[in-house]
């Protein structure tokens, strides 16, 4: 039977009235991350869809304080904020970054790498909608291979950057992937990350309705297919080495592509290439998980 989730009973941290698109999975994901994090949290949100969702001055859609840094500086800003809170004795207050893939993997990567190396104490959530969606869906390094974007109209010619592997290579205490379409898994991971100290990096897959070409009500279906096809496996890496896989690969990647207009143009050989990439990535993940035992 369907599991009853605690969401209906929670005090909301994200409020209604925000400007997210109808059906926005970014907003839905943040809603649940915030619900687990609770009110003793300060959020850092760089320019992104989330920054707009955070509301126009003087209104905020979050009931916790939010600081908006420049686009390339989220992890640095969060570091400064964290240290300041520590000097005030607010050790229980969580610092939560909610940054897009652009602000994380591209322009923001340098300071993220530095914060990871210093093992700064923050929960860094990358809201990965696989492109610079707020500025009109241009490609980011997190855009997958062959996807059409505002700056790659014939399809991106390079692969998606693997943020979780990069963070694991820094040896951070916790790096994991999740999506709100697997809500219990997401909430478990946020709760787990919340209970830890040090640099914790969660990458959430956020299907973007406008950017990917999805119906208003299809965001969760796209995320489920991403997971089920292995295009976005759910897994955790602890201390850079212990890999645990949390999802199964049960569908061909073509099923996932078929839902999205950004793949409308792909040729059969590209689909085959994508399937091979997904298979190889999955195999590698399974090997890492076996070696971790």
């Amino acid at each position, binding site marked *: 039977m369907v599991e009853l989730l605690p969401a209906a009973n929670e005090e909301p941290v994200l409020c209604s009235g925000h400007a997210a698109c109808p059906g926005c999975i970014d907003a839905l994901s943040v809603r649940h991350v915030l619900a687990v994090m609770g009110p003793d949290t300060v959020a850092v949100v760089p320019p992104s869809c989330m920054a707009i969702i*955070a*509301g126009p001055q003087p209104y905020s859609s979050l009931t916790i304080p939010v600081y908006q*840094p420049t686009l*390339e*500086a989220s992890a640095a800003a969060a570091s400064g904020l964290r*240290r300041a809170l520590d000097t005030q004795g607010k050790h229980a207050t969580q610092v939560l970054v909610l940054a897009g893939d652009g602000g994380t993997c591209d322009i923001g990567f340098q300071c993220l790498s530095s914060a990871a190396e210093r093992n700064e104490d923050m929960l860094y959530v990358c809201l990965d909608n696989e492109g610079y969606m707020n500025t009109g869906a241009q490609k980011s390094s997190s855009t997958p291979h062959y996807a059409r974007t505002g700056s790659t109209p014939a399809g991106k010619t390079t692969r998606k950057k693997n943020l979780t592997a990069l963070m694991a290579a820094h040896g951070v205490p916790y790096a994991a992937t999740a999506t709100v379409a697997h809500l219990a898994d997401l909430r478990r991971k946020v709760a787990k990350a919340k209970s830890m100290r040090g640099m914790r990096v969660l990458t959430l897959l956020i299907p973007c309705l406008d950017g990917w070409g999805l119906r208003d009500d299809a965001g969760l279906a796209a995320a489920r297919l991403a997971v089920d096809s292995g295009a976005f496996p759910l897994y955790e890496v602890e201390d850079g080495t212990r890999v645990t896989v949390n999802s199964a690969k049960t569908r061909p990647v073509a099923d996932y592509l078929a839902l999205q207009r950004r793949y409308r143009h792909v040729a059969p050989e590209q689909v085959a290439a994508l399937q091979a990439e997904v298979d190889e990535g999955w195999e590698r993940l399974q090997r890492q998980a076996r070696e971790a035992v």
Partner: protein
Amino acid sequence: MNPAATGGTTAVLLTGNHAVAWAARLARPKVVPVYPITPQTPVLERLTEFQAAGEFDAEIITVESEHSVMSACIPASLAGVRVFTATASQGLLLMHEVLHYAAGARAPIVMANVNRTVASPWAFWPDQTDSLAQRDTGWVQYYVESPQEALDTVLQAFRVAEQLLLPVLVNLDAFYVSHSLEPVEVPPQELVDGYLPRFEPPHRLDPAHPESWGNVVSQDMFNRHRQAIEQAFAKVPALAAEADREWAERTGRAWGVVERYRCDGARTVVLTMGSMAGTARDAVDLLRDTGQAVGLVKLRLFRPLPVAALRAALEGVDDVVVLDRNHSPGTGGVLHQELRAALYGLPGAPRVHGRLAGVGGVNVPVPAIVRWVSDATGSEPRPESMWVR
């Protein structure tokens, strides 16, 4: 010897950098994000030594770039915590975007900047173009002449910054000030604690009282915000003067906002900032000894430009020789051009002679200043700055 431990003021032989480090220690900031760059590194190293010895209780964050330094400073300050950092040249430039951000955030950060030539090409010489190129960012700017003045000004900067919620930049010339050694009076901790009130901003990032900073604004809000910044800047000269007076009462040292040296009855005045003021002092003495009516106006507060004080200081002067150790292509010397603008429309305003004297860190000896003063006095000034050696 540890001046702070003795409970009284002690004179210590300090470089400008170390004097800055001492001031930072005494101000008790809680968060110090910092990145090394020649010739600022002794500031950061001294602070880490203080911290390792248990004498400096602050979070020193060694981030990976100066852009990240300032990015870390702002939210720390907005959380309601005193913040300090230091940089130079390229580092300051790399922060440029975030300097604007800090001022817009009304974050009272105090930063020491060692004025060093700006690439390209690469060089490490004294030149003030780095900080002058930030003159539109909304930071209050001081220029100091000596290690003692550096220490005193960093502490005054915290007071002004926190009263007005504006960030303050304290500039010291590379090597001439940053690395030169002189006896510096280091005040005791209690004196500084009495001089700098607790930092309690009315708004802060605090989950107990949630309010957010940075949400997108309307045109009207942006316009009003800029007006508010301007209104705060309008108060700086008076508050800087007051901070200096209060400091003088406690320590006996006053630096003023605009210093007039032997200007009474002067027909020609040399006007400059930073280490050249020291050389110019000697040149004025020489000229006075030969019976020339020459004085020095040393500009300590550059931003906001204390127009009223400058006009007052230059009243009755025939010629002003502005010595610039900086270069803005197409404009010439920044101080020269700003002074011309400040004096525009003043009845009986002096002739203003702009001299690009120290660009790139070239040496400016006393005889050269004497010669420039003689050549300029009574001559017709050109609107553009002139290159002199």
